[in-house]
């Protein structure tokens, strides 16, 4: 599926309501794009992504037993970077994606409570109702976050 030039951009992700927690539904034309959009969706819960500048770059490598678990591991690594370095990614680039391994680059900056909106804290991405599927040539993932 390619976006029509000048047409509406295809939706990257949507937040799903869940009583205690929060779900994310993420889409992508390729698995790589799906993972990139998942990174954006995660940041969007934590803060207003548009206010982040592209000042720092983080190189990330993650392993997991399968593609679904890899998505959880990827999101939890981003949460780790936030916890440890206060780093929040605005743009994500998947450099290599295997079913059990990924290499990525995240660009963004250190969270500054003076300039950045404090969104909702996330404890972790979970395996509950975790799913990645290909629907009519488009990739779709569902992840539940523990808040």
């Amino acid at each position: 599926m390619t976006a029509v030039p000048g047409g509406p951009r295809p939706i990257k992700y949507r937040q799903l309501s869940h009583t205690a927690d929060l779900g994310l539904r993420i889409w992508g034309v390729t698995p790589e794009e799906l993972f990139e959009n998942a990174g954006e969706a995660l940041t969007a819960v934590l803060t207003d992504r548009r206010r982040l500048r592209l000042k720092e770059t983080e190189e990330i490598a993650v392993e997991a037993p399968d593609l679904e678990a890899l998505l959880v591991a990827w999101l939890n690594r981003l949460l780790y970077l936030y916890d440890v370095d206060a780093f929040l990614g605005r743009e994500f680039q998947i450099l290599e994606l295997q079913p059990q391994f990924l290499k990525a680059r995240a660009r963004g900056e250190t969270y500054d409570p003076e300039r950045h909106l404090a969104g909702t804290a996330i404890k972790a991405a979970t395996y509950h109702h975790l799913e990645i599927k290909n629907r009519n040539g488009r990739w779709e993932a569902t992840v539940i976050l523990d808040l």
Partner: protein
Amino acid sequence: MANNVKLRQLDDYRWEIPREGKMRTRGLVFASQRMLAKIQEDQSLQQVANVATLPGIEGPSMAMPDIHWGYGFPIGGVAAFNLEEGVVSPGGVGYDINCGVRLLRTHLQKPEVDGRIEELVNTLFRNIPSGLGSRRKDLKLTIPTLREVMRYGAGWAVKNGYGHQGDLEHIEANGRIPGADPELVSDFAMDRGKDQLGTLGSGNHFVEVGYVEEVFDDDIAYQLGLHRGQVTVIVHTGSRGLGHQVCDDYIKVMLKAAAKYGIELPDRQLCCAPLSSPEGKRYLAAMAAAANFAFANRQMITHWVRESFEQVLQMGPKDLGLELIYDVAHNIAKIEEHLVNGKKKKLCVHRKGATRAFPPGHPETPAAYQKTGQPVLIPGDMGRYSFVLVGTEQALTETFGSTCHGAGREMSRHAALKVARGRSIVQELKAKGIIVRGAGRATVDEEIPEAYKDVEAVVEVAHGAGISKKVAKLKPLGVIKG
């Protein structure tokens, strides 16, 4: 969402999910008729049934009246497993290992703090880092020190000048879960924990100044050192990023272990390993380490609560009398001895959003509460009230000594934000006499009182069913939210 789990009413407070399919035992849900309609809207009852399929489960798979949809185990879930065939599951504890609540009393009466609450709240807010990714700039732990914290828990904090020895006697497990092995906690987890000790974090965590509005049992309240009009403080937080990482690390271990030991999982988040396996033992030791970090965290925050009161009210510790009544864990798995079919048996009791409620005379009930039963602390939402209860013999025999842990959400965070839109929640609460300071507007709005079940309804079920006993009701005056 549709819910087709069969349910049979046993009495006014008890509902049974009959054993069927792959369930190894029945489900037992504590709820009132009124609460049930809401519970049936989501998948939490299915989750109770799912837990019942796990190997080595003893007694029913239970849910306390604040049950709601979690991930894997329901929130409000209690499940016990024997040590021979049973399992331990990180998902049955939760990401916030040893999230818990502590209650402090004071020598102050409400009129003595009237007009000072705003200042108290601002001082607490300044002294206790709160909010998204909160960290301490003044206290960065080295790895060896962090390991000490995880080994000794609240005892480490006391030894380093945060509080006094007497505090430890008023904490579940004396503020230290035995068997903790910090060597089994990953570097990732330690990275996350090293500057988060003594921070509140975000979400539903808080420090609340309140007062005793109502006493239900004069005798027990007296023995707990509580009386009407008295100023109290509640601290609610857990093991922060360190605990989240330990949970995530061991879920990965358990996904492999479940396959290795041939455990069939209805939901990946229920992944687990036999208690007798190396994986199971390693998780318990790492979980204990994270739990001890949480005990130390609440102990240090208590120290800053005491300092904040001293600063604002210009009073010494003796006059303030900020003493710990009790500290309970409500996300934990513990090895305990229980009677099973008349025989003493060691079990691993998972409490995920559930509180231990041991009766008078139990060896693990602290000395000070041998006659009253162990204090149980049930925080409500920030606009209403919280409850103090005590554990009972009924809880010990029926729920492995467990009861509810809080109000439980009724509204998703999205729905809460929608309801809060265009309103100033801080102003509304102020009009009700409650000063709230939150690190971010979103956290305050998501935590609006309407988003929660009325904690009183939850407590009524626990009290009515006899799995704990109401002692006092506390009303908030000032709250700092993460």
